């Protein structure tokens, strides 16, 4: 059984967090670090920069090598250096992390990306990666290469387009930090239905609630007033799972359009967890799916479990 099937084994989890700048990525990195530490997962930090047009790519590379001689480092490496510094500040008790020194000269290219060599990185399980190109394509390649379980991504201005592409094409669970406020007290809202991914979302939800101590609510939405056996069974399973872990759960059963109901219920003070769609990918591409539409329309952090 691989780790992607059924039970989650926190010891082998690998999370990836995408950062863009010190100015905008602080909340993303903070939550990435927090989630990775509560799950005891290894954390990859990736910066995806713009790729120069192929016409002038070699001129840009030649300039960068010349800049190295002047000790001027690539702007993406500066962001990764900031990320490491920030991770150390967020985890002051982590001795193995404290020992790591960033050295912009210690980078090597492999598999179409640049990896920063961090002495002792195995002990603290941090990786710093620089990639260039289109965001979704580069994240997909990184996740496939390293078999990440979860990608943590900040909210984007280009939400509609990006939400669709991220959910459709990234082969891991996805956590999109829309309007995430690290100081805010969130309630965990688990969207429960009869899909296959519900079971795994419940496991993720239980782990997060257990570690962070957030209150948990489950929400089951039916288009009609009648809740089928599948929906009722999934809600019961979720309740039993949480109670088994000693976590209290509030259950809600609402009727209406699922996406609109999710979004209205979530408001701005929930942290939503939902399963990835089991619809055929072609149908998802053409008509969208509940996770895609929920991500597009809501304004809260959402974890979509695959």
């Amino acid at each position, binding site marked *: 059984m691989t780790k992607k099937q059924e039970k989650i084994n926190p010891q082998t989890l690998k999370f990836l967090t995408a950062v863009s700048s010190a100015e905008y990525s602080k909340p993303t990195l903070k939550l990435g670090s927090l989630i990775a530490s509560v799950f005891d997962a290894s954390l990859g930090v990736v910066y995806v920069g713009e790729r120069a047009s192929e*016409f002038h790519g070699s001129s840009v590379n*030649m300039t960068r090598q*010349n800049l190295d001689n*002047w000790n001027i480092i690539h702007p993406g490496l500066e962001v990764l250096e900031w990320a490491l510094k920030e991770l150390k500040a967020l985890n002051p008790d982590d001795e193995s992390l404290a020992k790591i020194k960033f050295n912009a000269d210690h980078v090597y290219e492999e598999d179409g990306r640049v990896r920063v060599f961090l002495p002792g990185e195995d002990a603290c399980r941090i990786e710093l990666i620089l990639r260039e190109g289109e965001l979704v394509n580069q994240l997909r390649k990184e996740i496939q290469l390293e078999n990440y379980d979860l990608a943590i991504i900040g909210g984007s201005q280009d939400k509609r387009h990006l939400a669709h592409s991220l959910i459709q094409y990234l082969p891991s669970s996805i956590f999109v930090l829309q309007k995430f406020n690290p100081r805010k007290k969130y309630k965990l809202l688990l969207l429960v239905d009869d899909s296959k991914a519900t079971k795994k979302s419940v496991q993720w939800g239980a782990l997060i609630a257990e570690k962070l101590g957030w209150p948990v609510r489950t929400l089951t939405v039916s288009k009609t007033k009648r809740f089928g056996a599948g929906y009722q069974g999934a809600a019961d399973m979720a309740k039993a799972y949480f109670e088994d872990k000693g976590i209290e759960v509030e259950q809600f059963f609402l009727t209406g359009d699922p996406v609109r109901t999710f979004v209205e219920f979530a408001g701005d003070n929930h942290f939503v967890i939902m399963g990835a769609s089991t619809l055929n990918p072609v149908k998802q591409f053409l008509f969208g799916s509940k996770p895609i539409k929920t991500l597009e329309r809501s304004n809260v952090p959402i974890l979509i479990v695959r």
Partner: protein
Amino acid sequence: MNSYIDVLFWMRQKKWLLIALFYGMAMHHIVTPPPDLNQAAFDALVIISMALILIITEPLPLPAIAMFMLFMQVVLGIDTANNVASSFMNDAVFFIMGSLMLAVAIVSQGLDKRLALAIIRVTGHKTWRIIAGFTAISALLSSFIGEHTVAAMMMPVGLTLVRYAHKDPRKVAGLTAALLFSIAYGATIGSIGTPSGGGRNVIMMNYWAEFGAGSVSYLEWMKYVYPMVLVQIPITVLILLWTFKPEQSNLDSAVRKLVIEVARAGKVKGREWLAIILFVLVFLGWVFLSESFGLGIIALLGVFLYLAFGLVEWSELNRKTNWGVILLFGSAISIGIQMNETGAAQWIAQVIIHNLGQVIDNPAVLQGSVSVLLTGIMSNILSSSATVAVVGPIVLDLGGDQILIGFMTAIASAFGYFTAVAAPACTIIYSSGLVKSKDFLRAGWKMGVLSVVSLLGLSLLWWPLL
């Protein structure tokens, strides 16, 4: 399920390839060529328009697009395999190959520190003088050694000054932009000054020869075009100071730190002198021997000398030379020649003249406006050299003096001030992450207007005197 996602993802990544192929198949199989355009000419236009879609959107690596342009000429029966092969390689391609390698050889010598010291000695510590010095040096050097070489050497100097001026470059955004754009725009305006300033100039010289328009020597080119470089240098400085308004009027402390840093390099070494002497020899060869030997052959001779004297390793040249660009220009020139031979270029030129002739009466004004506007707009989307390779055959068929129209096109191809993609120097400063796309627009429109006015002045006031 995963294979469906893989296919959808491939389609997402390659959508422009699919659009280009669909467009090409529809044009070839469904659309009937206009009565005054033969099938081969029509097919040449289809290939070039498909290639343009692929070059702008980059769903494929450049060498793949180059190969596409070559095999499609044979597959669609435009010409035989041997003729396509012989049109692929010529002196312009030799020049592009040689100049890319020379850039690697020169940049690897570490002459940038000497250059930094020389500039600072001349300009002093005042910000406006440093920006003027950066613009002038970038322009004058790029005329001879190409803008990508100059930008690669000047960037560390500019960024070091920015770093010493303030530890957070965003706090001195105006100064940062003014310094970086003085490198990019300086190198761009200088690149028109001589044939060796950019591959596009040599591509135009190649088209003049192919179209039977005659030849222009290295010095004649300078006589026609260099006054524009000299006029544009002070204009560019004023535009940059006006647009970006540097936060500091004096860079005393930054300059002092820069001088200390570059002074560590010590005296000029014998190896560096040799690198300079070899380039001077190449330059003299371009000036005095290019009419007999060709600019490309002399560039290759220069590369040979750098290799022979051990100033650069072949492995370094091989690794850092953009072979994809060389293949692409070879194939773009090849299809450009087919556009001329099949009559496709003449047909487009006639369509333009027929339609715009009703708006603009004067043929000379029409020819000049079309060549400048078409080239200027396309160079901001495509790249300056690729624009000349594609537009060159069309504008030379517009009528009038082919040499003057060719000069206008080569000059206008340097008007790619609005985007980071047009010129290598603009891409290089953009890659620093310290200037934004909107900065190109802020300064670019002013540069564009004044460059068009300068070109107008050159063609009306200077060229009639020659």
